[in-house]
């Protein structure tokens, strides 16, 4: 359902104010839906036409249970697309809708301007529908069980993408290189008329070139030439898949890459949207009588359970902190070097560069660099951040440390590579037997070994030959192998230092 005239008027006001502040967003469409549709669409990751899979049913149960029991309510759902789509819950009050809209323009601006979204598919709504149709067609042709089993395999590996690919505009690799490797080598000749051919393409030269190419082909080439983090992309190119399987794997990879920037900028993005809804509401949009209700709603969004990290809250506070620091010039070597507490407390250069600074940051950064650059010791103390860990005896979580370095390190660790271990394809012809060799770039944290073994089985099911993963177990090298029947694990000398 489209907007009521009242809401359409509100939308136009919100949009105008947002534009005045310098937000640069896609055209934004709103849909009014009831809670059931909201749960359904949320279960499909925002795309009602997505491919069928039980995992969506699982999310749906989660959302609808949460709604039934009154534990959670999805209040906003916004899709990175051009035009941007946002869903409003029909049962919400007008004030709710106003605030959600103000929030949505923050997201829409972020989607459009942040560099990590630069190459994301802006017609994803169409693309997802397209994926849905293709997968349904495969289901019709090869059967639902087989397709579902294969999707399960792919989803189990969906975190094995190279996030740097987000900076590569076109992601279509041809299989040409591989194809040309078959059969005898052919030397490319220059174009010539028949009687000139002897001179333009001298036979001895052609023969020498042919010899050189033969030799080059005989020397085994390492596949991949360089270790690659794009395990899915590698499998897509090199695994012996049927046509429909390759198609499915390609779609899963494309969707994983589409969603990646949202996970990579969760804190920034939610913080940015909260910053703007707060600004727009309090400075432009609120009627006097709405103030108390608004305050309650805003508090609900930003509330932290004691001991929990709320990305809306953390993000919003960081944005405000940055704006304040650049407004008053509280950064740079002069400020850092100052050790007069009183002077530092009153430090204000009157630079008023905060607004420009935050717009700059929202363009070029993602969560890891954002936290790394701007989470200061003062901020950490003011926001009462801490590291928690289970008590060794009771198993109950307790506050472990409020040390700035520890907090920051823990935060950064949980966000690096979206919290996933970094895994690379090193060799596709290990022991010259077509076995796949993966490497976990161990940086101090062990894998969950049982699950790694299960995942390895799934890699093997796609690769079709034995697969290995090299990792470490508390620092000691370990090689886990699945040969199609049994999982074996042996101690090795790490090849990666």
């Amino acid at each position, binding site marked *: 359902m489209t907007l009521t005239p009242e809401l359409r008027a509100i939308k136009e006001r919100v949009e105008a104010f947002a534009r005045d502040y310098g937000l640069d967003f896609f055209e934004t469409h709103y849909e009014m839906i009831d809670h*059931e549709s909201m749960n*359904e669409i949320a*279960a499909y*990751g925002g795309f009602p036409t997505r491919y*069928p*899979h*039980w*995992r*969506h*049913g*699982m*999310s*749906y*149960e*989660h*959302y609808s249970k949460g709604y039934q029991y009154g534990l959670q309510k999805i209040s906003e759902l916004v899709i990175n697309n051009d035009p941007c789509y946002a869903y409003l819950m029909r049962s919400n009050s007008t004030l709710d809708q106003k605030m959600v809209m103000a929030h949505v323009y923050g997201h829409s601006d972020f989607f459009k301007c942040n560099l990590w979204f630069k190459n994301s598919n802006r017609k994803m709504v169409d693309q997802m529908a397209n994926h849905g149709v293709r997968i349904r067609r495969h289901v019709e042709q090869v059967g639902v069980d087989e397709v579902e089993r294969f999707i399960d395999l792919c989803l*189990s590996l969906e*975190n*094995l993408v190279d996030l740097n690919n987000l900076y590569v505009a076109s992601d279509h690799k041809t299989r040409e290189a591989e194809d040309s490797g078959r059969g005898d080598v052919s030397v490319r000749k220059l174009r010539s008329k028949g009687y000139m051919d002897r001179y333009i393409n001298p036979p001895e030269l052609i023969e020498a070139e042919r010899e050189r190419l033969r030799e080059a082909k005989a020397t085994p080439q390492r596949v991949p030439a360089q270790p690659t983090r794009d395990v899915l992309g590698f499998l897509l190119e090199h695994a012996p898949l049927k046509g429909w399987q390759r198609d499915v794997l390609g779609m899963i990879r494309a969707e994983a890459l589409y*969603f990646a920037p*949202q*996970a990579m900028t*969760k*804190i920034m993005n939610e913080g940015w949207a909260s910053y703007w809804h707060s600004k727009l509401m309090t400075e432009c949009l609120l009627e006097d009588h709405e103030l108390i209700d608004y305050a309650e709603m805003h508090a609900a969004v930003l509330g*932290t*359970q*004691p*001991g*929990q*990290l709320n*990305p809306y809250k*953390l993000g919003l506070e960081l944005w405000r902190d940055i704006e304040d620091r650049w407004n008053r010039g509280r950064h740079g070597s002069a400020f850092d070097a100052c050790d007069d507490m009183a002077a530092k407390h009153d430090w204000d250069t009157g630079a008023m560069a905060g607004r420009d600074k935050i717009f700059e940051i929202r363009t070029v950064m993602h969560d890891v660099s954002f936290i790394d650059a701007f989470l200061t010791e003062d901020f950490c103390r003011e926001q009462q*951040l*801490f*590291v*928690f*860990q*289970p*008590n060794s005896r009771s198993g109950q*979580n*307790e*506050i472990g440390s409020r040390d700035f370095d520890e*907090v920051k390190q*823990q*935060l950064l660790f*949980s*966000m690096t590579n*979206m*919290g996933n*271990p970094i*895994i690379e394809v090193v060799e596709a012809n290990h022991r010259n037997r077509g076995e796949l060799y993966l490497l976990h770039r161990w940086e101090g*944290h*062990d*894998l*969950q070994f049982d*699950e*790694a073994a299960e*995942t390895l089985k*799934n890699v093997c099911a796609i690769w079709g030959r034995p697969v290995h*993963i090299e990792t470490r177990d508390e620092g000691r090298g370990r090689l886990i192998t699945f040969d199609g029947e049994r999982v074996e694990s042996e101690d090795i000398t790490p090849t990666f230092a």
Partner: protein
Amino acid sequence: MVHRIDIDHARFRQIVRGRVKRDLARYITHGELIGRRGKESVSIPLPQVSLPRFRFGENGKGVGQGPGEEGSPMQPGEGDGSGQAGADAAEHTLEVEVTLEELAAILGEELELPNIEPRGEREVDSAHDRFSGISNVGPEGLRHFRRTFRRALRRELASGQYDPRNPIVVPHREDRLYKSWTTREAPESRAVIIYMMDVSGSMGNEQKEIVRIESFWLDTWLRSQYKNIETCYIVHDAAAKEVDQETFYHLRESGGTKISSAYELCARLIDERYPPSDWNIYPFHFSDGDNWSGKDTERCVAMLRERILPKVNQFGYGQVKSAYGTGQFKGDLDAAFPDEPRVVTSDVQNRDGILDSIKTFLGKGR
């Protein structure tokens, strides 16, 4: 309109069902479901549903926000939302709710349990329709011809239209009468389960736990078969008394064992509260097989034969092995009732035996 999500959701429930079924033996043996039982459903942790992936082993660390001294504990449940704020709803271990009805169906499928054959002819449909009245409106198929004709005749007589020499009666619209029915709620099938347990010194905690697990599953199954079900609990050592569920599982007495005391109380309960004409009755007795004397056993057999068996659907005796029990009683019962289908005895050596025991008890379909 069928939503797309309904299909995916149904598929997910199907997977859940399959997993529960596959691991049913483990759930039964561990008894972990009992504590997770709500009014109508059980919440089951299913770690295997989510897809495996390469991820870090949990060291439990995370970042939180809020006041508190270093080293001060957080409430359970706090700190769960930290770390990677993932886009996926339910990532690791999943708690799914399965209704007791569904659970019973799974149990039935897995153990190939027959549906219970209702006892006697009392068993009528819980609701049935009966033509009991007459109405001015209704479908033509239910028109009551005789009454309609009579009314038409009366009207024609009263208005003087009736001509005996030409006795044609034409019913008008308002003459028509129709049969009407009422839906009668017949008494629904009711059942009572009477649990009896030996709580003498030789029944240890493990034995009681086995009884607890087994009775949970017996309950679940019988509840799926009867609309109304009541349970009674009787504990006994040398004397028997009726207790509530809590006491039943936790009471520990010492001293001798007179099984006849329990059977006596059971028979009295049936006589006083559960007339067999209204109730399907299922007594189950669990002990370690020790009895005070052969003489008492004889009394038990006599009491079963005369006062209990004629009134019940089935009498179940489960003998739980304990370090002290002789396991005599089951043999005695088997010898006394070699061909009595209503007496079902089963031997439970340990937790792994629970599954077979349930099958023995419920496999008869009585």
